[in-house]
């Protein structure tokens, strides 16, 4: 049984349509990378799944149950956590509070708690008392990842983790993924950094103009095919 499935998923911002019938399936313990250019609809897809954008009820299924109509907070309590684009730490909360709020009112138990998050990102431990927004970009991203992990999600949605970060910092962050996967989370990773995304994923979907233009296993896809799906040009 698929963990998550979207069926002809559409999304709108007012009159503007961002997604045109997206069909993806994510199996348990699988990692799916979604790549594509700016404005291809990648973030809209994650925002729809996480409930920030409203969708028709049947267009998103979790364990074959429709969840499209649910609010973001209800979806979170079903075990879907999101690392939002731009990290979005809470400025009035310190690092530790930012992490703890990830577990707000959650019943799920699992590996992730404050100590284990600090083990994963030791840099955060010594700064646990500082305002979250006073940290460096990479450290802020660690807080955002830790915050999402604190809910012990079954499905973790990662939106542009590498955005605005130096390559060495990105590499560091991506080194956390094997551990995250081992602890029982399936992942959907939205990325512009194709190389990093392909490295950790089992499958890749490429999006363009609100549609999926290509999908397959990373090893089966040539750079040329990705290039074509990415920019909508014929393979040269």
């Amino acid at each position, binding site marked *: 049984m698929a963990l998550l499935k979207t069926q002809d998923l559409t999304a709108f911002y007012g009159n503007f349509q961002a997604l045109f019938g997206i069909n993806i399936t994510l199996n348990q313990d699988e990692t799916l990378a979604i790549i594509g250019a700016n404005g291809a609809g990648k973030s809209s897809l994650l925002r729809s799944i996480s409930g920030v954008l409203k969708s028709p009820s049947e267009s998103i299924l979790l364990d074959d149950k429709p969840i499209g109509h649910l609010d*973001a907070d209800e979806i*979170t309590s079903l075990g879907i*956590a999101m690392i939002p684009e731009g990290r*979005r730490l*809470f400025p*009035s909360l310190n690092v530790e509070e930012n992490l703890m*709020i990830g577990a707000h*009112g*959650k019943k799920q138990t699992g590996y992730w708690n404050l100590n284990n998050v600090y083990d994963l990102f030791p840099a955060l431990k010594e700064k646990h008392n500082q305002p979250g927004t006073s940290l460096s970009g990479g450290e802020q991203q660690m807080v955002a990842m830790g915050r999402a992990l604190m809910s012990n999600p079954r499905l973790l949605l990662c939106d542009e983790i590498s955005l605005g970060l130096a390559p060495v910092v990105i590499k560091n962050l991506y080194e956390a993924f094997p551990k995250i996967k081992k602890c029982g989370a399936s992942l959907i990773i939205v990325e512009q950094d194709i190389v990093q995304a392909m490295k950790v994923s089992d499958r890749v979907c490429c999006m363009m103009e609100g549609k999926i233009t290509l999908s397959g296993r990373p090893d089966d896809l040539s750079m040329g095919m990705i290039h074509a799906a990415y920019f909508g040009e014929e393979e040269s």
Partner: protein
Amino acid sequence: MIFLDSLIQGILLGGLYALFAAGLSLVFGIMRLVNLAHGDLIVFGAYLILLLVSLLNLNVFVATLVAAPFMFVLGWILQKFILNRVLGDDILPPLLVTFGLSIVMQNVLLETWSADSKRLSAGALETASLTIGPINVGIMPLLIFISAIVVILVLNLIIYHTSLGRAFRATSDDPVTASLMGIKPKNIFSVATGLAMIVAIIAALYLGVRSNFDPSIGPARLIYAFEAVIIGGLGSLWGTLLGGIIIGVAQTVGATINPEWQILSGHIAFLLVLMVRPRGLLPRAFD
């Protein structure tokens, strides 16, 4: 000596204004909502205590305790069924709805209680006083001031040291991301307004014990509360207490010079602070 006396009276009066303001400050801090009916809700609270006192023959303090859960529920309902529906990027609808509510409440109180002024009686406590050296301090004003400090301590404890308070702050920062954490912003708003109404009933108790009240005095209380919040700086409850003290001192000192200047002096103190420090005396670092 007269000035020292009015200075102390003013500081103690500031405690009452801080109590008027704390609920307003809390609600604004969390949802950027200015409730124009806040003063009228306090006056309503005073009538509620009066009703309980006369109906059940309770002591005013006990009556306040009895009224508190009722006020919480009232605030919760008000937020959930009315204010949550109009909250959004546009500040107009919530302002107009609470303004309408203010007019409705004043006139409902007028219809049910008439325009005659009423008072809550705290018995012997009202006249008791404490002599410290050359200064005579009433027990009641002192109790009001201490209550204000306790209320602010408790509110800060909730805001900074509980998971509810964490959710308050997170929702205030960014409601969308807060909902990704499993927080329902609208529920948080309802709880916050309920909490503000508990503070309002404490303010109502002391409003009624300290002076006469009638259905028309709500807006003036709203204005004092607002001035205290702005002087103190948005988001700081201690700043609000400081703001209340400044208004209180300005009023009592002004009244010592000329009784007709009492209210005016408070307003002018507010304008002076607004001119020199538009963000208040103790502003939050970010906003």
